[in-house]
């Protein structure tokens, strides 16, 4: 079991170093970092001085090691466009994105599993079929159109909910939260729905098909024969066995949560990391792009690790096999 965890850790570290290398190459070769930092009138001496201070006069591998060391301490240099440390920009915008992503993942998972189970149990029901058809359309709709549609209905026509921003936020230490004010909560609703919708349809369809599969297996038939009530079979026996593939896909989908967060944040002018990244791309703000890339890779690695650990918790076979160093 320890070997299993250690191997996941090692793989994650390799991915992180590879991504850091790409980020560093971008920083080093896209545009001229010195020209971007000093003004037009800087003298050659100024430039050389800055190059020495940034370590740009040293060999490439040494520079990369410096970059890695700084990145480990959360230092990604200074934004070309805003002239502030990238780490400060990221820290400032992190809470908005984390709250949005976590809430929408929660929304998608809870509602997705519930609807998926319902659609599987009432396979021929009218409501179940309506839900399935709707989810098919939902998969083909681009995220930004869903967001715009929600804005049009709930913000423009009905005027129930705000269409942009986070509303009022409360500061707790360096973290800002929109969860404690009424306007903050109202502002969260539409972005969370937009971001969660795609995940919701995906998880729902997956739970339904897995559940149908499990319900056909022998141990469910035996449980029925033993006279166990249908509810208990469905939730204690069947649902638990559908969770392994669901956890895998939900973990893998984190990538698309981040991708759709970029879009959602732009639609709702949400002051998060995704909007920061889109701005950085528009103005070729390389340090911010590089830092975002490393950040995303870091989140990936952590979530992959958590997914692996969730397997261990969910699947006793893995726990039994792992000590022998199997697989």
């Amino acid at each position, binding site marked *: 079991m320890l070997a299993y965890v250690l191997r996941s850790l090692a793989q994650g570290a390799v*991915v992180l170093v*590879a*991504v850091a290398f790409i980020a560093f190459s*971008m920083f080093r070769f*896209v*545009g001229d970092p010195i020209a971007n930092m000093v003004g037009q009138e800087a003298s050659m001496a100024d430039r050389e001085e800055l190059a020495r201070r940034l370590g740009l006069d040293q060999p490439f591998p040494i520079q990369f090691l410096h970059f890695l060391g700084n990145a480990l301490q959360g230092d990604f240099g200074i934004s070309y466009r805003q002239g502030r440390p990238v780490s400060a920009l990221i820290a400032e915008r992190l809470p908005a994105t984390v709250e949005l992503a976590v809430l929408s993942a929660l929304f998608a998972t809870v509602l997705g599993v519930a609807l998926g189970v319902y659609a599987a149990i009432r396979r021929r029901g009218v409501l179940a079929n309506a839900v399935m058809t709707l989810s098919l*359309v939902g*998969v*083909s*709709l*681009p*995220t*930004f*159109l869903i967001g*715009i549609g929600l*804005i*049009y209905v709930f913000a*423009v026509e009905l005027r129930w909910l705000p*269409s942009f921003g986070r509303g009022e936020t409360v500061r707790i230490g360096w973290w800002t939260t929109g969860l404690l004010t009424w306007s903050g909560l109202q502002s969260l609703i539409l972005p969370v729905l937009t971001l969660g919708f795609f995940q919701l349809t995906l998880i729902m369809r997956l739970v339904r098909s897995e559940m149908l599969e499990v319900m056909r297996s022998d141990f469910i038939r035996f449980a029925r024969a033993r006279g166990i009530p249908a509810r208990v079979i469905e939730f204690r026996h069947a649902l638990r066995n559908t969770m392994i593939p669901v956890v895998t896909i939900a973990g*893998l989908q984190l*990538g*698309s949560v*981040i*991708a759709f967060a*970029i*879009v959602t944040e*732009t*639609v709702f002018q949400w002051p998060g990391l995704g909007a920061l*990244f*889109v701005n*950085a*791309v*528009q*103005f*070729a703000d*390389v340090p911010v*792009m590089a830092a975002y*890339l490393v950040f*995303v890779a870091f989140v*990936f690695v952590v979530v992959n690790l958590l997914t692996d650990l969730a397997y261990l918790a969910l699947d006793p076979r893995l726990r039994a096999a792992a000590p022998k160093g199997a697989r």
Partner: protein
Amino acid sequence: MNQRAQSQPTPPGLLARAWDSDFLWSFRHSPVAILSSLVALTLIAAAVLAPVIAPQNPFDPAQLDLMDGLTPPMTPNEVTGRTFLLGTDPQGRDMYSAILYGARISLLVGFASVVFSMVVGITLGLAAGYLGGRVEALIMRIADIQLSFPAILVALLVFGIFRGVVPPAQQEAATLWVLILAIGLSNWAQYARTVRATTMVEKSKVYVDAARLIGLKPFVVMIKHVLPNVMGPVLVIATINLALAIIEEATLSFLGVGMPPTQPSLGTLIRIGQQFLFSGEWWILFSPGLALVLLALSINLLGDWLRDVLNPRLR
């Protein structure tokens, strides 16, 4: 002998045989496939023929009249009295023409980027599957990393690098090509995986051994013998990817890192239309949005159908 020859019907023509083939049989019996291919073909034909059928050239300022600006659909303009099928934008541009020309760009980027990622993916997949060893390990590792990052993120990165490398004056002209490159580069890994898997199966078959025995070079065996046998799954992925590429292009343009307003794709039109959502001019956003959804949905459904037909295991 004589009897058998008599009972055999005259060999049917090519058209009739095609009509009776498995493929067209399931096409004729799938209302979804017929409807979605009709919608997709209509939209593609309209986009290709845009210069012929559009009432005006939306990129030619001489044809636009500012007085026509913000005319709602199907109602005469209060000043000029002209009527527009889908209304006009603030510059007096006919939305119907703008959508035809926009769909043209969206489809061009979609098709070109799919072809680009197909070429890259097939080449790398064939090489990995046929050559094996180090080459395979390296290519598939890169594909793994690429696949774990969302396509849109990769495309945004490529675009950001482009903004940093190309001088601003040349950026607008190059945007179309960069979009194709960015979207193509973000989708090759799926082809590589599928082609590699199929190649590994095909490689062990007798016909490949035979081709090698008569002394053909590995390159020739790969291109002339293995490649035709891996094209089936590739075409399915390509169809579904076409819908994804069109949505990806629209998303990039919507985010403001795609086609500029002077040369709008459907995504750019939606981005422009979003600014008028609050002032009640809904049609500037609605019709390009609907065109995009119809295009993506019909191609998607067609791809789903194609996958089911070409993959007997799922039937």
